[in-house]
């Protein structure tokens, strides 16, 4: 809600400049020309263009939103101006490149880039076209405010889905070819891009479905909520069975490459469930979580390796419980000295522990036993009825089993007394202690169970790779897992899987972004945190903690209730209940 009722030139200038700087930055670092070859819609739209104009579009939309209520003209003007202003830095760059060879300072400002920015029309005319295109984009973005929400949402979702399908065309076309043959693929895709016709159809389809869901979604949810309990349980059981079936045939559906991606996702999800207990449930900030992962992995290596360093040559299955036990031991070892620490101090100490383990793994001291930088090689794969599970499609089932067990335990604990102990401890440690909760036990259990899950994950990880090296067990993994559960929703179980999909699955699928992978990753993280700080699938508790519900309905609560009537409770009787 804007204060002034009038046109404020500062708003479009502000947003336009920000957008301009962003567009300039992505051009100058080389993203735009790198992806200019990558068509999303064959012959029409490249990824480079999307990246270039994304900031101007988004910020013009925001600027338009800042117009005073009801002043549509001003809103459109804001968008137009913001779009125009955002093109100015780019036009400046085009001009400069004509005067000076910028490649001395900015190696990525190649002729190719200038080509793109000027739409192939040379400096003068091209800059003009750039400004016109940018202003138009700004205007159109602003116009999105004028469309009713019911229409706007399907349009945005339609665009998003079309973009995603264009982006992942390679993977999708491989799958479609698998199931439907080459002709089907050719109908939709051309090279790695969408046919324009296919793009339009996809847009209309997804926009339409979004619209239908907005209209009917509440209806369906209501019908579900008001179903008879028995029918509801039937429905839920049916849903769970369907989910399990899909999980079981997943490798067949997604193929080998994606199975490998999913395996990575699941291994991290396994770790996520563990950290979810330590940080999400118990509120103990552990930044050295990778230590338990490493211990599980190295234990599996030592026990099953057929190489020089292996001690026992055990089978995978026999080694698993020992790996988990080793991790639990380490968890207790870490937990005991840190019992009194809170918050930041706990974070630092656990961080130190993680580093200790990594340095030990790398050290010359332990090199004779665990291989130092040369790593531990020739680790065994799991064997079922004589067959080693080498293919990702098959190994998938081992990881899946691990995740299901761990998720199950997490779920049961979250509903139980221990879950309440953790939650109380997280909310107010002193009061929790005053409730009779033994803090020592509660904290150690959190560390131990969290470590157990990480150890399991590490053991499976070692077997998957068949050789492990210290550099895989660095602090970045601890941070990644932490980000994962924050993005997914701390304390929430489905959130762990969502977080893993987003933070582990996405970078895998973004491999074609090459060196810009982590830039994208960082941007996505920031955007997600701004949009949904409680996570993508938050637990009910987290939602309460992060959003102030000032429109809660208390129902009929009179300020004072005479307890006289209430205390004559039939349950109380005349004898003391206690």
């Amino acid at each position, binding site marked *: 809600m804007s204060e002034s009722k009038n046109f404020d030139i500062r708003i479009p200038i502000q947003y336009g400049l920000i957008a301009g700087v962003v567009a300039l930055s992505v051009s100058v670092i080389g993203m735009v020309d790198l992806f200019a070859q990558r068509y999303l819609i064959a012959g029409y739209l490249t990824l480079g263009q999307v990246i270039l104009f994304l900031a101007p579009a988004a910020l013009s939309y925001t600027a338009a939103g800042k117009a005073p209520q009801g002043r549509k003209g001003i809103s459109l003007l804001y968008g137009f101006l913001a779009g125009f202003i955002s093109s100015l830095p780019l036009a400046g760059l085009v001009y400069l490149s004509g005067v000076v060879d910028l490649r001395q300072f900015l190696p990525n400002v190649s002729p190719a880039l200038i080509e793109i920015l000027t739409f192939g029309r040379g400096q003068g005319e091209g800059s003009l076209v750039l400004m016109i295109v940018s202003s138009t984009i700004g205007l159109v973005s602003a116009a999105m405010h004028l469309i009713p929400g019911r229409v706007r949402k399907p349009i945005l979702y339609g665009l998003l889905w079309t973009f995603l399908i264009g982006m992942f065309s390679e993977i999708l076309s491989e799958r479609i070819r698998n199931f439907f043959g080459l002709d089907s693929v050719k109908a939709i895709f051309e090279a790695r891009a969408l046919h324009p016709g296919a793009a339009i159809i996809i847009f209309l389809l997804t926009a339409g479905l979004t619209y239908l869901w907005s209209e009917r979604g509440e209806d369906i949810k209501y019908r579900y909520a008001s179903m008879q309990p028995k029918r509801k349980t039937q429905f839920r059981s049916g849903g769970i069975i369907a989910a399990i079936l899909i999980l079981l045939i997943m490798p067949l559906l997604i193929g080998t490459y994606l199975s490998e991606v999913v395996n990575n996702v699941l291994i991290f999800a396994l770790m996520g469930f563990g950290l979810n207990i330590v940080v999400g449930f118990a509120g103990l900030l552990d930044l050295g979580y990778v230590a338990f992962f490493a211990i599980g992995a190295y234990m599996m290596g030592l026990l099953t390796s057929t190489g020089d360093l292996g001690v026992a040559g055990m089978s995978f299955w026999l080694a698993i419980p020992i790996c988990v036990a080793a991790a639990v031991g380490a968890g207790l070892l870490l937990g005991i000295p840190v019992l009194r620490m809170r918050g930041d101090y706990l974070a630092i100490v656990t961080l130190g522990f993680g580093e200790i383990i990594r340095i030990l793994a790398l050290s010359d001291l332990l090199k004779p036993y665990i291989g130092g930088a040369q790593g531990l090689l020739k680790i065994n794969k799991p064997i079922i009825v004589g067959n080693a599970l080498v293919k990702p499609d098959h190994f998938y089932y081992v990881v899946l089993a691990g995740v299901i067990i761990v998720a199950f335990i997490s779920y049961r604990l979250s509903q139980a007394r*221990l879950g*309440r*102990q953790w939650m109380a401890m997280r909310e107010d440690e002193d009061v929790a*202690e*005053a409730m*009779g909760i*033994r803090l020592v036990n509660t904290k150690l259990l959190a560390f131990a169970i969290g470590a157990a899950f990480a150890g399991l994950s590490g053991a499976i990880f070692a077997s998957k790779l068949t050789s492990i090296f210290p550099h895989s067990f660095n602090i970045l993994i601890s941070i990644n897992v932490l980000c994962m559960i924050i993005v997914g929703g701390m304390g929430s179980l489905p959130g762990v899987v969502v977080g893993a999909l987003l933070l582990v699955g996405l970078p895998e699928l973004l491999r074609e972004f090459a060196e810009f992978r982590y830039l994208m990753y960082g941007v996505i993280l920031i955007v997600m945190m701004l949009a949904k700080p409680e996570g993508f699938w938050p637990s009910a508790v987290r939602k309460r903690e992060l959003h102030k519900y000032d429109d809660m309905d*208390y129902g009929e609560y009179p300020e*004072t209730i005479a307890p006289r009537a209430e205390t004559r409770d039939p349950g109380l009787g005349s004898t003391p209940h206690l």
Partner: protein
Amino acid sequence: MAILTANSVTKRFGGLVAVDNFDFEIDEGAIVSIIGPNGAGKTTFFNCLTGFYQAEEGDMLYKGQRLNGRTPDQITRMGIARTYQNIRVFPAMTAIENILVGQHPRLKTNWVESILRTKRYKDEEEEAEEEARRLIRYVGMTGLGDQIARNLPYGAQRRLEMARAIASEPQLLLLDEPTAGMNPHESAEMMYFIKQLRDDLGITILLIEHDMRVVMGISERITVLDFGIKIAEGTPLEIQKNPQVIEAYLGRGAAAGLTETANPEAVY
């Protein structure tokens, strides 16, 4: 029979003596109050009793057992519960969940059983939930059980803290300013409720209070602290007329000019 005895309890914070050689005793089943100006050391004494602070000197005995050196969770499991001056319910948990946490000392199944959902576990949880709901009704919060504690109105949060405190089935209940922030009507209800706790459930009550109507209305005995030192002890009537008490609350001149106040036995 004394349920709680404190002998020469002293608590220091560096150079400040918050509680100074304090002797104190409560009989089982009694309702007793500690009063005094702000900063007199009342809550500090509570914190010593509950193990949150460790007293430097003196002994505290509960049913013959020493409280000194024990951790708060041990003391709660011995049968002492407390509420807080500034309400400290678990804000993001529902009222029922708060009370379930309060029941912690009563519950016996362990976490392994909870994963396996043994019959013993399921029965205990069901019983605990029923008991929590009963306590909600008992403190007059019917219908609010599934509300998030933070969103509850002030009065309800106070009741919730009470319910949570009695959920552990204590024999001694320490109430720290239970009527803070309440209007006279609410205070009267709270007073009645506290008496109910003692009459129905046999809980011994130790009260810190500033509201004199409440203090005089339900206390059988009152102890007065000022600067950590006990300056008076006796029945409500005695305390009201004690010049040192009046001086501590109202200043030196007031003692001279004050006459007897309204009937201390009155219950509003």
